[in-house]
Each structure stands twice: as C-alpha cells, then as structure tokens.
C-alpha cells in the first residue's frame, strides 16, 4: 500500500456546503466595499488599456478618479450595449478598439450565437478563462457534484462560450471530462451508456430530445449512470419548473441551471433551492433599471439587468445592458448573500410584449404551456404588430399521444388559451401545428419568432 493517500481535495474542504463559504456568504456591506474597490480598478484599467472606453469616457467627460461610490459608478459610467461592440468589430475585425490587451494575451476566442444578427466576437485571456470557469463550479458544488463525478458534454465544441467555460469549470473541480463532440443524438446516448458519466452538460431542450430519442431506441435514461443534469443557454429548470419536472423524470437525475451571458460570464449559478440563480459577485457587479425610465428600481421589482464583469479583462464590459428582465432579492434561505434572481430571467426587454396594456413575459407563457395536457415541448411564440399593438401567438406541436387525433389538438389549444387568460389576464391566440413541423435545435432553442417591424425590436440577438 502507498504511504500517501491521494485525493483531489482534503476532507475539510470536501465537507464544505459551499465552494467558497467566505465569499458566498459575505455580508452585503463588505461585498459592496469590495465591489467599489474592484469597479474603481476596472474603470482605471478600461481608461488605461481600452481605446473604446477611453473614447467613451472622454465623450462623457469622465475621469477614473470621478468614481468615488457605487452611485457614481451607476450614474457616471455610460451604459454600453452589444451593438456598440459589434459595429466596432465589424469595422476592424476581429475585435477592433474593444480589445484591452495585446493580442498575445488572447488565449481563446468565442462568439455569441448570432442567430438573428451578427455574432459578437469574445476574446478571453488565460486569467479570464479561469475566472469564467470558476463561476460554474459554485453551481456544480451547490447541486452536490464532487470530484469523482464525470461530465459528459453533449456539445459540438463550436464557438459557444457557455459550454467551453463549463469545461474549464469541470477541470477546476477535478472531474473527468468526456467529449461528445462530433456525435449525433444516438451517438451521445450510446456514449453515455458505454462510458457511464454522472453529469450531463447540455441545453435543457437537447437533454429532453436525447431522452425522447433514447425512448425510441428502447433505452430509459432514468436508469443510466447520470445523477445530475446541468444546463445553460436557454430558459431551463429554474426558469421553467415544469421543465425541471420533465428533465428530472426523463433522466432520473437532479437538474441544475446557470444563467450566463456569453460575453459577460457564466455569471449566476443556480441556487440549490432550485427557485432562482445567485449572481457570482466575485465576477460580476449588477444593478437593475426600469427600461422605460432608465431609473434604478427597488428590490423585488422587475427590471433590466445591467452588469459589469471582472471576468473578461480582454474585452471589458462596464454597465452593460443585458436586455434580460430579472427580479432581484437580497436574502435566500440557502445562506448565500449574493444577489438572487428569482426564476432566473423572467423575459427580455426586446421580447416583452404589451398586449392590451398587460406586460406578457415569455417564461410566464412557457410555464403555463408546460402544464397543458397534449401540448408538447415543441412550441414557439410569434410576435407581430397589429393596429399599433403587440400581438403574441402561440404555435405548438401536439404531443405524440394525440398526434393522430386532430380533434384533441383544438382541445389542447383551447385549454392553453384559457389557462393563459386565467393567469395572465390576456387572451392569446393558440394554434396547433403539424407534429414535426417546428425546427429542432441542438444548442439554443429559438422560442421567439419576432415578426414585428424593425423599429419595435432589437436587431441583434445575443
């Protein structure tokens, strides 16, 4: 027998309920003092190294020493938007004046999905990849994933930052990584059965698709080696409780979710309670504003998330408009003091529609649809504009069980419309479509089809 016991982590660290208790439970006063120090450093850094920010600050008449408080930061540092960066990158590819480091520091390139527009290039330095990957680990640890677990990535290793960073996180945690690159859905299932990983990383809808394909193959993935599924890239088990139920049943596993924004960070790992995500305040500072007035909102109100990342020093993002609508809370029974976003992202400022005076959020509709018998997970929300009003129409594929009974399609549609009306006080048109007619996606599922005129929508998808 060897005289030294080999272990990735010692027993005291392994017994911890938190990945980093000191920071995850840090009192708000101390967190805010730390943010102020870091934000001042970041503003100075952006001023010194980023031509983009030097120009922006000059235009605003801002000097780094003007930032003396968090209020100063929120009010004086100009808001930025993805389109600012994309335009400059298009003028001078690949990064133009948005790059804040010499090219030799850039060790990894990613891009946003760009499904409805031009992708944003995202440069990462080595330090950035370490910080970005760490964000995942808080969530992994909180869910119960430990060294000794092994990760299966149902992911094609394209330029999607999210799952590359999950890989950086899995390495940090000390887990085996199994790549599903190059395999089709059946290939993923066979690889899982053969290699026996314990954690699945995928988009939530792709995890459900894998389960459906496995069932056609005569395989019940609830009996597989997978103990945890962890998701990002689209609304998942935290935003959509019905999806959690579907995922956990299909895989016989505990489902987790992380809210990330490719160019910012894997910024908000899931709360172990399963009802929200916690902002990783070691990597990101966030505040929320009313998108109509531009004013900061109070805790508990729904507002647009404005974020500043410490994790991307190659292309800093300060007071960055996410267009995500969140409801922030400062307290959570899980013990974390990091800001909590209840239900993760509740909707998008560009996809929020006001139907006859009522704000309708994407996830609210999705949650209701998931509860209607006969409505499958294949659906889309079509936004149009009629008589100066936003209109949302739901198109769904009926579940397999009623695929050959058309009379039940209309019944499901009518029930969905009634439930939406009862819960949200608006009547939406709900239409069944032929089974298999809506597109299928391996990465981000596109739920919103925005057919409104350009002036009523944002052109660039994240």
């Amino acid at each position, binding site marked *: 027998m060897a005289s030294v016991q080999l272990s990735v982590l010692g027993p005291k660290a392994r017994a911890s309920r938190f990945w*980093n208790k000191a920071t995850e439970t840090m009192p708000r006063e101390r967190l805010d003092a730390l943010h102020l*120090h*870091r934000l001042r450093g970041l503003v100075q*850094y952006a001023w010194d190294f980023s031509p983009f920010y030097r120009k922006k600050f000059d235009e605003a008449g801002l000097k780094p020493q003007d930032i003396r408080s968090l209020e100063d930061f929120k009010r004086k540092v100009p808001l930025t938007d993805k389109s600012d960066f994309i335009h400059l990158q298009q003028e001078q590819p690949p990064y133009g004046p948005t790059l804040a480091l010499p090219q030799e520091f850039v060790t990894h390139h990613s891009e946003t999905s760009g499904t409805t527009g031009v992708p944003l290039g995202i440069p990462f330095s080595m*330090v950035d990849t*370490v910080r970005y990957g760490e964000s995942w680990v808080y969530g992994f640890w909180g869910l119960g994933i430990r060294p000794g677990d092994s990760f299966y990535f149902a992911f094609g290793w394209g330029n999607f930052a999210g799952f590359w960073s999950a890989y950086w996180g899995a390495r940090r945690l000390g887990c085996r990584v199994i790549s599903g690159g190059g395999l089709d859905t059946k290939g993923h299932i066979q690889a899982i059965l053969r290699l026996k990983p314990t954690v699945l990383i995928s988009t939530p809808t792709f995890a459900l698709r894998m389960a459906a394909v496995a069932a056609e193959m005569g395989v019940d993935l609830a009996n597989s080696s997978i103990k945890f599924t962890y998701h990002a890239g689209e609304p998942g088990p935290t935003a959509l409780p019905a999806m959690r139920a579907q995922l956990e049943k299909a895989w016989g596993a505990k489902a987790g979710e992380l809210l990330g924004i490719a160019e910012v960070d894997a910024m908000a790992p899931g709360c172990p309670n399963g009802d929200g995500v916690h902002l990783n305040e070691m990597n990101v500072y966030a505040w929320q504003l009313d998108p109509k007035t531009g004013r900061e909102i109070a805790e508990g109100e729904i507002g647009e998330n404005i974020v500043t990342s410490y994790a991307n*020093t190659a292309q800093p993002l300060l007071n960055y408009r996410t267009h995500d609508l969140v409801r922030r809370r400062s307290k959570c029974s899980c013990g974390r003091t990091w800001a909590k976003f209840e239900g993760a992202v509740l909707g998008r400022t560009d996809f929020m529609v006001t139907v006859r005076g009522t704000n309708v959020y994407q996830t609210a509709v999705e949650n209701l649809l998931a509860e209607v018998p006969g409505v499958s997970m294949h659906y889309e929300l079509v936004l149009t504009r009629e008589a100066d009003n936003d209109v949302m129409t739901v198109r769904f594929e009926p579940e397999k069980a009623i695929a050959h009974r058309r009379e039940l399609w209309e019944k499901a549609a009518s029930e969905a419309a009634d439930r939406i009306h009862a819960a949200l006080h608006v009547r939406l048109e709900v239409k069944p479509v032929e089974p298999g007619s809506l597109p299928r996606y391996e990465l981000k599922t596109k739920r919103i089809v925005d057919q409104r005129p350009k002036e009523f929508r944002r052109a660039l998808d994240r």
Partner: protein
Amino acid sequence: MTTEDRVACVKEARKLILSAMRGCDSPQIEAILRSADMELHWALWSLGEAVSLRPELDYGNSD
C-alpha cells in the same frame, strides 16, 4: 489557520514567485511561474482581498 494567516501566506508565496520570475531566461519556467502567480492572485481575489484586476498589473516594468 485563520483567513488572515492564509492571506498572509499567499501574499508571501507571490513575493517568492515574483523573485523567481525576475530575469528568468527560460521561457518554460517563466510561463510556469506566471501561471502559478495567476492562481495565487486568483486565490487572494477569491478570499475577498482588494487586489489588482490582473496579476501582471503588479509586476511593474522591470525585466
């Protein structure tokens, strides 16, 4: 060990690594030492210490 003691140890380790890096004529060894310092800087950051945004900002312009 208290958190304060742990922070002091990590700061001391950084000092030693920076000494070993100074004037280094092996690209391999300098790259390894930079990597080690990056992790130590990250440890301080994750201990809630008010450190600079990137480890290289502490190196100055010598060597």
